[in-house]
């Protein structure tokens, strides 16, 4: 399929520069003091539980943070489904685990839409807010997103698909990759929750 291959390579070239910027953000992962700052920053959003979502929200209980959007055909529904499997497999151990689904598409993802979108997943809270606050949160969590126009007046969002784990003190613990092996994901979660 040469034509589609060309297009995906073109897509790669398009995101390459932006991904480089994003990787530059990721570099500080290597420095421990910066790892501890992941999620910390000036952003003020609102959760579908009616509570504000700020850097302080990460404290008090362990959290899973994932950035996505409701117009996502695959990665976001799959990840939410994977999180449901993790919860089933972990049982009571995951009782206190909070799931924050932060939209990268606040223009379309209202709190009302997000509430039902994640409402079926125990402990899940949708997070949205002003565009500028969402971008500030992306920066704090080192999340890349970019709006991609489509025909018919539509658009989609390229976005980082890492699931970020935080401990009860709000400190970044480890990421879980998209579709990471179940046992590896569970062992990370057990270490987080243990």
């Amino acid at each position, binding site marked *: 399929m040469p*034509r589609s291959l060309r*297009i995906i390579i073109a*897509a790669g070239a398009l*995101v390459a520069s932006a991904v480089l910027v994003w990787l530059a953000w990721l570099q500080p992962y290597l420095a421990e003091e910066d790892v501890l700052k992941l999620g910390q920053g000036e952003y003020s959003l609102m959760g579908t539980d009616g509570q504000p979502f700020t850097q302080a929200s990460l404290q008090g209980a362990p959290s899973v943070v994932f950035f996505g959007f409701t117009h996502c*055909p695959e990665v976001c529904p799959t990840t939410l489904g994977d999180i*449901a499997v993790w919860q089933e*497999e972990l049982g009571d151990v995951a009782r206190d685990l909070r799931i924050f689904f932060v939209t990268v598409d606040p223009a379309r993802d209202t709190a009302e839409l997000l509430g039902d979108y994640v409402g079926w997943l125990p402990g899940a809270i949708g997070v949205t807010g002003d565009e500028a606050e969402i971008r500030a949160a992306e920066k704090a969590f080192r999340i890349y997103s970019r709006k991609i126009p489509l025909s018919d007046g539509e658009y989609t969002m390229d976005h*980082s698909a890492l699931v970020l784990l935080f401990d009860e003190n709000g400190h970044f613990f480890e990421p879980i990759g998209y579709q990471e092996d179940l046992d590896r994901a569970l062992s990370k979660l057990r270490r987080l929750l243990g």
Partner: protein
Amino acid sequence: MKSLMKSAALLLCLGAPAMADDMMAMMQNTTVGPLTLSDGFAHATLPNQPVAGGFLTITNAGEAADTLIAAQSDIAGVMQIHEMAMLDDTMVMRELEGGVVIPAGGAAILKPGSIHLMFMQLKEPLVDGENVTVTVTFEQAGEVALTLPVRKKMHDGHGMSHDGDS
């Protein structure tokens, strides 16, 4: 790779009216010109999810290439042909404005994580166990209607296999 049994179970009845008396006509494919369309399905949606992916395999027994150029469904205000990929933990998705080429004697596989039919502006949810009708258009072979069974995404719980890996 899935076992043959599993693959057989996942094959679908792609709307073959002549076989309507046979509810277990799971292996029936749809043909249009030299093209055979098989293994189609669509993913069920989450609440308020206005988009979904549709998937199928197109085999071309002809001596000329053909191109899948469009899709439409009553359930979707817009349908497009997209390709997605993961690049360094980032999900990217692009519209395939030129469509999908099915080479002479070859095949094109639309599958999760790759090229898909994109249902957009969904008027109602796609529900696991139901069917959705889609008309696809090829440059040479023309239009053909398909009935895609809607499936829940399978997640890698212990003892389960993922439907995107076939």
